[in-house]
Each structure stands twice: as C-alpha cells, then as structure tokens.
C-alpha cells in the first residue's frame, strides 16, 4: 500500500507511537554529550514520553549522533536491522548530513542516507539541546501525519540500500582469520 493511506488502526497507532518514543542512541563522535542535558531537568525529554532504551529490540528511534567510519557503519546497519518495525532514524549533526568536517577523509562515510533511510536530520556542528527537542517534536508531528516511513522505504528498495552498503563496505559480515 502506498506510503500515506493508513487504516484507522494505523492512525491510532501512530498517535500512540508519537506520544511514546523510545530512543536507542548510537553515541559516536561529539554528539553524545548533547543527550544528557536533554534528558535531565533543564530540557526534560521525558515530558514527551521519550526515554533511552538499552536494546534495539525495544527502541523506536535510532539516534546517530556523529561521523560513521566503515567499521561503525557495519554495527549501525546490524543494529538497525535488529529493531522492530515502525522504526525511525535521526541523523544528528552535520557529519551524518554530508560528512561534516571529515567529508574528505578515507575512513568516514559522507551521506548516511545512502545506507539506511534517515527520517530527520538535525543540522549544526553539534546542535544544542533546543534543536534536539525541536527535531523530536518535528518527528512526532511527522509520525502523526504518517510521513515518517523511512522503514517502509528501506523495505521497498532494499536491494538499492544493500548494494550501496556493499559497495562502500565490501561486505557486512567479515570472515577473516581473526574470526574462525
């Protein structure tokens, strides 16, 4: 079915999903330090029903907070595939947008979007918590509207994503002499 007609149940479910988003933040690079202030008393994230979760199995949002090298990208893809359906990805900071200050380095990847579907980007070389909260509210609105369906895109053109990933990483699962 196309991306935006949704059954009545989907609509209600999206309402609920937007109200309680559980976040698995993949802290790489310098973005991780922005999260504690957004959770504690000044910018209280829990007001919106959001909270950090330890395992991808229970997480709704995969929150990638910085540059991704080839090695860490494999982990991100592996974790992304372990998350249950309606899952959303937020790219935090310019490094996920277009490689940021490491755009020309041999190790990092430039656009996160080629490898996993990103629903929302937050620009800024480490944006402040206010931007983070603004982004969360924006995401909630998108979910309510039914626009945040990156996971559907991933499912529909799965080969394209997989092909991009293999092109840049060689292959996701490494068999070398270190791992018998």
């Amino acid at each position: 079915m196309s991306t935006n007609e949704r059954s009545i149940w989907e609509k209600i479910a999206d309402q609920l999903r937007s109200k309680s988003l559980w976040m698995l933040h993949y802290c790489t690079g310098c973005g991780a330090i922005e999260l504690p202030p957004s959770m504690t008393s000044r910018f209280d994230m829990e007001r919106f029903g959001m909270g950090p979760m330890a395992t991808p199995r229970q997480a709704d949002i995969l929150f990638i907070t910085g540059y991704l090298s080839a090695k860490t990208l494999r982990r991100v893809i592996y974790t992304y595939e372990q998350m249950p359906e309606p899952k959303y990805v937020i790219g935090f900071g310019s490094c996920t947008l277009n490689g940021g200050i490491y755009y020309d380095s041999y190790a990092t990847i430039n656009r996160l979007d080629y490898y996993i579907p990103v629903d929302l980007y937050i620009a800024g070389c480490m944006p402040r918590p206010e931007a983070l909260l603004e982004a969360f509210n924006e995401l909630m609105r998108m979910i309510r509207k039914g626009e945040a369906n990156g996971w559907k895109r991933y499912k529909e053109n799965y080969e394209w994503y997989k092909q991009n990933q293999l092109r840049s990483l060689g292959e996701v699962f490494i068999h070398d002499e270190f791992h018998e």
Partner: protein
Amino acid sequence: MTVLRVIAVLLTGFFVGLTLEGIARKIMARVQRRYGPPWYQNFIDVFKALSKRGISHGWIFDFGILMALGGVIATLAFVPLGDLVAFPGLDNIFIIVYLFAVGALGMAMGMVGSGNPNASIGVARALTQMLGYEVPYLVAIAGVLYYYKTSSVSGLMMAQQDTWTLFKMPIGGIVAFISLLGMLGKKPFDTPIAPAEIASGPMVELSAKYMGLLMLMHTFSIFVEISLFVDIFLGISNYLTFLLKFTVVWIIATLISAVLPRFRIEQVVKFYWKVPLSLAFVQVLFVLLGWVF
C-alpha cells in the same frame, strides 16, 4: 457472580496499576526537579509496544510470556482488594505467594529461551534476589499467621479489629516492607533489570508485543505484592480506603527508590539474610512469647 468479581479485580489491577506507575514516574521526575511525563504515559507506552511488529525466538519464548502473564493474572484473581474478594474462602497466603512463582518461572523460562546470555544472567540474579527477600518475608508473615491462627488473607484483614497489624507487630511490618521493596524490583533492588550492566537483564530480547505483555505482567505483579502488604498489615478497609492505602504505600516505595543507588547481587542476598531475617526471627520470638502491642 465470581466472574464479575474477577473481572472487577483485573480491571482495577490494570487501571489503578498503570495510573500509579505514571504517578510514580511523575514523582521521580519531580524529585529530579523536572516535569516528567503525563500520568497516562504508561497506558500509551503499553499500547504503543503492543502495536509494533516484534521478533520471536521460537515457541518456548512465546509460551514463557503467556505462562508468566497467565500466572500473574491467576495470582491477582485470588488477592482480596479490601472487601472485594474474588474467591471468598480460597485466598490462602501460601497459594498467592507460590502461584506468583509460576509467573516468575514462566518469565524466567521464556527469557532464557531466547538464547541471550544477558537474559540468563538477569534471570539468575532475579532468582537469587527472590531467595534473598522471600525467606524473611515468609517468616514475618508466618508470625502473623501464627498470631491470628488463620492463613486466609481476607481472614487476616478481618482479624485486625482494634489496631493494625503494623502497630501490633511493628518489626514484622518493617521486614515485610523491606522485602516488598525487593519484590517490586524498584531501584535499590533492581539488580536483575540493571540496564547499565546487562542491557535490561531478562528483557534484552523482548521486542514489541512481548514487551507490552511483560509490562502488563509487571504492573499486575506490583499490584499483587502491594495489595498483599496492605491487606495483612494496614487494617480493615473497604474498596476505596484500600486504594488510598495502596497509593500511600506505593508513593513511599517510589520515594525510597528515587534516591537510592543499586545493590550488587551478593550484597542483596547478604543484606536480606542479615538484617531483615534476624529482625523477622526477633519478631517471631516476640509473637511466641506473646509480647504483642
């Protein structure tokens, strides 16, 4: 007639349980000087979790969750809420405590069935913690049973004509409350679900629907534990006063857990078998000698 009462008990368990959990999160937030989620946040979380498409690790994983929820629902049905008693003659204290073990075993079996070692470590810790808090709790309760000469929970409640058992046997009350904290799995004693150490322990492989069912089971089990404490120690109460006492106990428990860090698992067992067990034996000695206020 009993069917109606059972449904009433289950519904109270569901609604009152979830609202109180929401209130607990609000109190926790207020203690940390922040606003905290709305009181109905837990309802949303449960329904959101139920609505997602998760993953399952084979038939034992599903059976474990069903057995857990089924066991706890069965236990809840037997617990008298004030004067609302689903099975008047049959609510024996040992039945409730051991039927509760069915739920615990079901969850343990399901989680370890998932094959993740974090889950096995979490379950091993949960069982050890259970060994820790169960013994002083049951000895204190046995003191009360011996004093009132009946082992049915509603009978115990009715027996507190003049003063509450909490004032009649204060040490027993304290021991039961400490064990209650252990049972609830709140902060000082939440080693099995330690998110930082073993990735939320048994719940590591629980995805959407199973997570929702388990949150339901968690609420029902909290409801069972506290209502047991309220029935036995806090005097006669009709339905409304029961809920009031329930909320007071729940708030005290949340306040304690809001400020305390987490025990290591050996410390939990050592603590429970040093302080509460000796207190329980002192209390039982008093009951034997008849020194009851």
